[in-house]
Every structure is written in structure tokens, then in C-alpha cells.
């Protein structure tokens, strides 16, 4: 069971309540596809991913980025039960989407960097540590049901 201090809960809630999902989601996903091009394998049907500009302006990627980011909401609302909360999504990513779980960490790292760009100095080492702990728990839960 993951333990969260009051401070950590507050930091996580703060980040998400001030988040512009329609801005950050698309940016994080686009960055992942550009920085780790092999992740494009999961988006063959999304249209033109031919170069960085195409990826950044692709409307399907943008919509999907927002969707994925909202997927984190359920973790924020269920910090004490993330593993169970993501069981269904884990099965989906394994059985239906066939996503290599190593990719979750890649997207998490890109999200961290996009949020760092947005918050600047306000993204202190302590906040970074908490945010990365949160993402690590989500990533672990998403990989949990793979077999």
C-alpha cells in the first residue's frame, strides 16, 4: 500500500486542479511521439505523424493527449487505492491495446517535462519528487494486470 503524506496529497491535488488539460495533454503525447519515435507504433491509424510539425498539429493526437491526461484523474481521486482503480485500464492496455508497459514511463517522463516547462521555478525539487512518485504508482498499476 502506498503511503501519502498530507503534503504530497496537497501537491498532487494542486497540480491537477490548476492543469490546462487541453494544453498539457496534447503537448505531452506529441513530445513522447517525437522524443521516443517507436511509440508511434500505437498510432498508425491517427494520420500524418511523418515529422515533428505533423505530430504537433495532428488533431487526433491532440484529442488523445487530452483523453490520456484525464485518465490520471481517477488516480488523483483514489490516491489510496490506485492499484484497484486502474485494474480495468491495465487489462485494456494489455489485452486490447497491446501497449508495452515500458512505454508508460516514457509518457510519464514527457508529462513531467511539459509540466516543468509550464511551472518553471515553481516546479521545485520537492514537487517534482512528489509528482514523479505519483506517476510511478500509476505506471505500476497500469502494468499490474499484464500476464
Amino acid at each position, binding site marked *: 500500500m502506498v503511503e501519502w503524506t498530507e503534503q504530497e496529497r496537497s501537491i498532487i491535488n494542486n497540480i491537477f486542479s490548476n492543469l490546462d488539460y487541453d494544453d498539457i495533454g496534447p503537448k505531452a503525447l*506529441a*513530445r513522447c511521439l*517525437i*522524443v521516443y519515435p517507436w511509440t508511434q507504433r500505437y498510432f498508425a491509424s491517427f494520420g500524418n505523424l511523418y515529422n*515533428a510539425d505533423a*505530430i*504537433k498539429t495532428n488533431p487526433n493526437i491532440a484529442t488523445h493527449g487530452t483523453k490520456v491526461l484525464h485518465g490520471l484523474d481517477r488516480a488523483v481521486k483514489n490516491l489510496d487505492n490506485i492499484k484497484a482503480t486502474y485494474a480495468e485500464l491495465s487489462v485494456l492496455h494489455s489485452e486490447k491495446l497491446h501497449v508495452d508497459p515500458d512505454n508508460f514511463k516514457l509518457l510519464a*517522463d514527457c508529462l*513531467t*517535462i*511539459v509540466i*516543468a*516547462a*509550464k*511551472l*518553471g*521555478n515553481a*516546479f521545485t*525539487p*520537492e514537487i*517534482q*519528487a512528489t509528482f*514523479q512518485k505519483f506517476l510511478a504508482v500509476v505506471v505500476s498499476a497500469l502494468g499490474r494486470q499484464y500476464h
Partner: protein
Amino acid sequence: MSLTEKDKAAVKALWAKISKSADAIGADALSRLLSVYPQTKTYFAHWPDLSPGSASVKNHGKKIMGGVALAVAKIDNLTGGLLELSELHAFKLRVDPANFKLLAHCLLVVISTMFPNDFTPEAHVALDKFLFNVALALSEKYR
């Protein structure tokens, strides 16, 4: 994942923009490494003060960035250019190479906070590849 000419150009262009702030970047990245990945503190047990912004952290951050600057200068031959540093890390410091990845990530985060407009996805991929190759060069002499 070796560096293309395009990657090298992107790294040099980004470095030109950020190198004036090298000391601050190094100090911040190291502070973050110690906070976000507390296991890395084991390498610095001999320091009096491991808190972010301490003199030890600042000094060491500066030293690390000196290494990064050297790597940029030797970008066409990282293995050769970083030979001495590799021997230092392999035989004296014996830092587990897994940690290079962690520091690289912290460097990317710091650069992202300080230079959000310059750290585009294109610059990010080039720098990520560069740091990966620096880590490889540093690990060269380990075994």
C-alpha cells in the same frame, strides 16, 4: 541511437543558449537528483550538507556541467573525448551506470523549467540522445 549531424547541430545550438547558466543548471539538477531519487545520496555520504542549494551541491553541480561542456566540445568523438572521465567513474567513483539516466532526466527537467521556449520537442530528442551517448561513453571503461 548514435548522434546524427542534425542531432549534433541541435545540441550545439541549445548549448549556446543555455551554457551561460551552466552553474545554476548543474546545481539545480543535482539538487533534484538527490530529492527525487534519494538512493543517489549514498554517493555523497561524505558531504556535510546534502540539501538543495548547499555549497557542496553547488560546487559539484558546477563540476558536472564542466563535464557536459567537455562532452559538447567532443561531440564528434565522445568515447575518445571522455576517456579520462570514464576511467575516473569506472575505477575511482564506481557510480552505478543506472544513475547516469537519472541525472540526465533531472538535467532535462531543469532545462525545461529554465528555457521552456527553447526546449522544444526537437531540442529535447537531440539532447536526450546526446546525454544517452555521454552516459555510454562514461560507462566505456567499467568492464
